[in-house]
Every structure is written in structure tokens, then in C-alpha cells.
């Protein structure tokens, strides 16, 4: 066996091992399994009183900036900073935990999330889930709204992309804990997430669903669907989770 044969053998072995699909999707030892995370956090959040965390959200606390300073007083978001109002508590808490352990990458959010206690994350998650505020979003990426609507309502089976609505609900207001509302979301944010799943900067998504879909969507499709979703009426307040 010469050196090239060694390398060939080793490469084959390495590829073989790393390509093994992870049976259950456990991305980090400190956070629950992908498929269950949102429901687990929602159940934990049931005992937390969101009113206790309203001040933290509005005014911050020492090193922790207020959420409102970036996400807006009504949790409506702005530019590539997402709307939080009306997202499910389980989904928000899951993302805060993902930032805290470095599983989702965003300098500002990692800085904040690292300083939050578990109860603070759960309380803030419920605070924003219960918030009902009008849309502050609109198309801004020059996307083709007709194509965006088509993708949202019917998907495109030629490229194996199901309708957004087939998982995010008939008004894109989300489904229970794991599937977030997309309606009235800031288009630059939605677009940035689809791009991040495509190039691997964002990892978390149950059964790697969003990775698959993001790869299939062209850049133009990503703009189109992000812009279209921004035109939809904002979600109502989420019902309080029960444990």
C-alpha cells in the first residue's frame, strides 16, 4: 500500500463514518433532542409567570440588554431582527437555548442568551408568545410575490418543496410548539435563515427539514417566499402552554 492508497482508504473510511445519518438528532449535549425540544421547553414554561419577566423584556437588566431595544416595543422586529410576538413559547425558548450553547450563531443573541437563566428564557418566551401586535413587515427584497404565494400555499413538487402552509399552518401562524409562525415576519430575517440553513450556519431544525427545503430553493425563491410571508396578517397571541 503506498501513501495514496493510505489516503484513499482513510478518506473512504472517514466519509463512510461521517455520512452515517444520526438516528435521533442530538446537536448538543446540553439541549434536548431536536424533535422534542420545543415541546419540552413549553412544558417547563407552564409554571413560569410571564408577567414577572415583562420588565426584563422592556428594560433589560444590567448586562442584559432589553429585548425591546432591538425587537421593538411590540415585538414586531425590524430589518433582519425577527418579530417575536406570537411565536410559540417552546420555539422561542428552544432558540434562546441554542444561542446560549453556541448552536445558533449570532453575536448579539449569543451575548444576551449566555447571561439569561433558564427561568428567564422561559418567562421571556411566554411573554412574547402571549403578545398580539399588528404587522410591521412588508416586502422589501424585490421578491416575486406571485411565486412566493405559490410556494407558500402549494409548494413546488418539482423540487420536492412542500407548501409552507403544510407545516406552518393554514395562515402561517404556526402549529403547536415546534412549527413557528412565519406570518408578518421580517423578510430580511426569513431570508437570512433560509440562507443560513443552506450554507450550514444554522443547524437546528427537526429531521433537518429546513435544511432540505432551503437547499432546494433558489436565491430568487428565498426572496420571493420571504417577501410573500411578510404580507400576511400577524399571528394572534399563542395560547398558554399546559404541562
Amino acid at each position, binding site marked *: 500500500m*503506498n501513501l495514496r492508497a493510505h489516503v484513499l482508504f482513510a478518506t473512504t473510511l472517514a466519509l463512510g463514518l461521517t455520512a452515517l445519518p444520526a438516528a435521533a438528532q442530538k446537536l448538543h449535549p446540553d439541549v434536548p433532542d431536536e424533535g422534542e425540544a420545543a415541546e419540552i421547553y413549553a412544558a417547563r414554561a407552564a409554571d413560569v409567570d410571564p408577567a414577572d419577566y415583562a420588565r426584563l423584556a422592556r428594560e433589560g437588566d444590567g448586562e442584559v440588554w432589553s429585548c425591546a431595544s432591538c425587537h421593538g416595543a411590540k415585538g414586531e422586529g425590524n430589518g433582519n431582527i425577527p418579530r417575536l410576538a406570537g411565536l410559540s413559547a417552546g420555539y422561542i425558548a428552544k432558540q434562546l437555548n441554542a444561542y446560549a450553547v453556541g448552536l445558533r450563531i449570532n453575536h448579539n443573541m449569543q451575548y444576551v442568551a449566555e447571561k439569561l437563566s433558564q427561568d428567564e428564557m422561559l418567562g421571556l418566551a411566554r411573554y412574547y408568545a402571549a403578545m398580539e401586535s399588528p404587522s410591521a413587515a412588508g416586502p422589501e427584497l424585490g421578491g416575486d410575490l406571485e411565486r412566493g404565494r405559490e410556494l407558500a400555499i402549494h409548494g413546488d413538487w418539482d423540487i420536492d418543496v412542500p407548501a409552507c402552509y403544510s407545516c406552518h*399552518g393554514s395562515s402561517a401562524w404556526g*402549529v403547536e410548539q415546534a412549527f413557528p409562525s412565519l406570518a408578518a415576519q421580517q423578510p430580511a430575517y426569513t431570508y437570512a435563515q433560509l440562507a443560513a440553513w443552506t450554507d450550514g450556519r444554522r443547524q437546528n431544525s427537526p*429531521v433537518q427539514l429546513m435544511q432540505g427545503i432551503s437547499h432546494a430553493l433558489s436565491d430568487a425563491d428565498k426572496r420571493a417566499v420571504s417577501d410573500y410571508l411578510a404580507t400576511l396578517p400577524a399571528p394572534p397571541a399563542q395560547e398558554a402552554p399546559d404541562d
Partner: protein
Amino acid sequence: MTDPNPQPTRDPGRTTGRRAIGAAIAAAALVAVGAGLYALGIYDPIAQSPDRGTHQAGAIELAKDEARADHLASRDAYTNDPAAGPPTLPVGQDGYFVPRTVDEAPDNEFGDSVRRGYEVFTNTQTNASQHVGNGMNCANCHLGAGTVPESAPMWAAAVEYPAFRGKNKIINTMEDRIHGCFTYSMNAQNSPSGTPPPRDGDIYKDLQSYFYFMAEGAPLEGNLPGRGYPVPPEPAQGYDISRGEAVFEANCAVCHSSDGSGRQDPNGRWIFPALWGDDAYNWGAGMHRVNTAAGFIKHNMPLGRGGSLTDQEAWDVAAYINSWERPADPRQLRDGTSVAETDAQFHEHTPNFYGDVIRGDLLGDGVPGEPTEQAPSTGRPLGEQTASR
């Protein structure tokens, strides 16, 4: 193959053992690098979608439009002059038949019927609500509004009826077939009217208009590729409920929920249909067979990631979802027979769990629980029984 960079000298001092160690170290290093790359998601494009992410969608669509246009032109030429030869079959880049889509339906009475049929098919819960006794829509099992190949597409079905069917041993028209889907897949026995749509009614006419319209250009009895749910070969290890449970938890529960009951959105609409229990298809539906469900799942689930499960996983998870209680087989209620008799009459020749005792529960009597607690002969639809307890 010639080697542009031949190895100039080989180190004669190297023993086989040292080479093996070298290989092992190199392998370990590459594994580490590979694992790092994998964690970065860099393999995802390879693993998931080989050559997409650009403007594939547009190109595929264009090719389909061209195939349809060619077909129509050659059809017209043939109508005008038989010497022009038969029309071409409209097929896309993937080789599958290209159906007409509902937005091409004409602006006349027939087009109206096509559009109504599409609405019934995709939103059966609302548009045929009197005859639906669970949480299902036709399009839940026939994806893309009945257009997706290997998801029992309606353009392939439309040209295959009337046909003799072993299931009821008579000639079945398309109306009979739809009647059957309401009876079993949509569990009409538990619907507000208690029955499938009345024979010869508009629901049948509109659904058939929609299917017929889609299938324009398909050869009669063409047995087109993509018809039905092609069943992957049964694996050597057979199928196993407990292996299937692990597959289910890792790949399905996030959408269909751990207890298989599905999920609704804030508008109360079913988004993830139930796989077992009250709101699912009943024991007479084709999907209760392990082989049929394995075919559907292999090609279509997890939604958007069809084809990602192995044949073994598809069979195992198909077994798992069909090992739970669901609404009774309507033929049992119709005939007043016991589960055992119904089993012998209708469930003998396919792989399924009807009439088996699993987790201490007799499957088929429509009620979860101890087999001994059950009424011995006839069952009733699940909803009624639980309501009266």
C-alpha cells in the same frame, strides 16, 4: 489510468505494521476533519439535494410546459391528418407524465366542475364535510393535490377504471373507487351523514372531472410509471414494531405527534393528519396494510424528504403506525360479524395487524384496552363507543 505524479521512491524501511498505524492515524485525522465538516453542514448539499439550489425549478417547469405544448401540437396534427402519426406522450425531465394543472381548466361549465373537484380533493374537510368522519383530506395521501408521482397520483388512476378489483370482487368504476375512499380512508361511518356521498351526486362528478382533466393525453390502461405507491421489496429481516417505534420517534413524531393523533393549527384545521386513533383512516383502508403504507412512506415521508428512509425503516415504521387501534372496519359493522370473522374474510391475504392482540389490545374492535373487556362480537365506530363510556 496513467499517473501524472508517480511516487518517486518508496521507503524500504517501512513495515506493514507501521503502514497500518500510519493509515489509522491518517484515517482518524480525516474522520475528525470530516466530522467537523459534517457538523458545519457542508455535506448537506451532497446528502440531500445533489444539484439543486440554483434555478432548477424554473428549468423543470419549462421542460414540462414544452412537453405539454409538443403533445398538443402533435395531437392536433393527428386529428387533422392520421398520416401525421400518433401524438407524443407529455413527459417531464424525470420521465413522469405531465398532467394538466387546475389553473389551465377552461372558463366554462366543465372547467367549473374541474375547479370544484380540486377543492373537494384538497379540502375535503370543508367541501365534503357531511361525508368525512375523521381528520383527513384526499390530498393527505395523494400529495400535491393528486399530482405527485409515487403518491398514487390521480392522472394515473383516471385511465385505469372501470376495472375488476379483488377487494370487492366486482367491476369498479371511478365512482365506486371514490365511494370506497370515503368509506374507508375518510371513515364516512363517523361523518355527520354517516355515509359516503350519495351515488351519482356532484361530489363524484366534480372529482372525476378533475381527474379526467389532469389525465388528458395519458393512454387508457397505460399503467403509467409513478402510479400507486410502489412498495419497496420486503427486507430480509421482515418488519418489526419495536424497531419501527424508534424510526417513528426520530422521524415522524415532531409532525404527527408521539401518540399519532396529528396536530391542528390555531384555526382548528388539521395540518398534520392523524396516523391512528379516532381521526385516522379506518381498518378497511388500504393504508392499514403494512406493505401499502411502506410504499407510501418510502416515497413521501417525512414530508419534503421522501426517499430518505431505507426500505427497512419504511417497513418497520409502517408496521408501527398500523399496530395501534383505529376506527372499526365498516364491513364488520355492515355484516354484524366478529373481529375474527372479519379478519378471516377480508384481512387474511395481506400483511396487517387486524385481529392481532398487540400490547394487550385486540386490534380491530375500535377500542383501545384489554381484549377481555371488549364486547365479543361486533364493534362500533370508535367515536360512538368512547362517547358512551
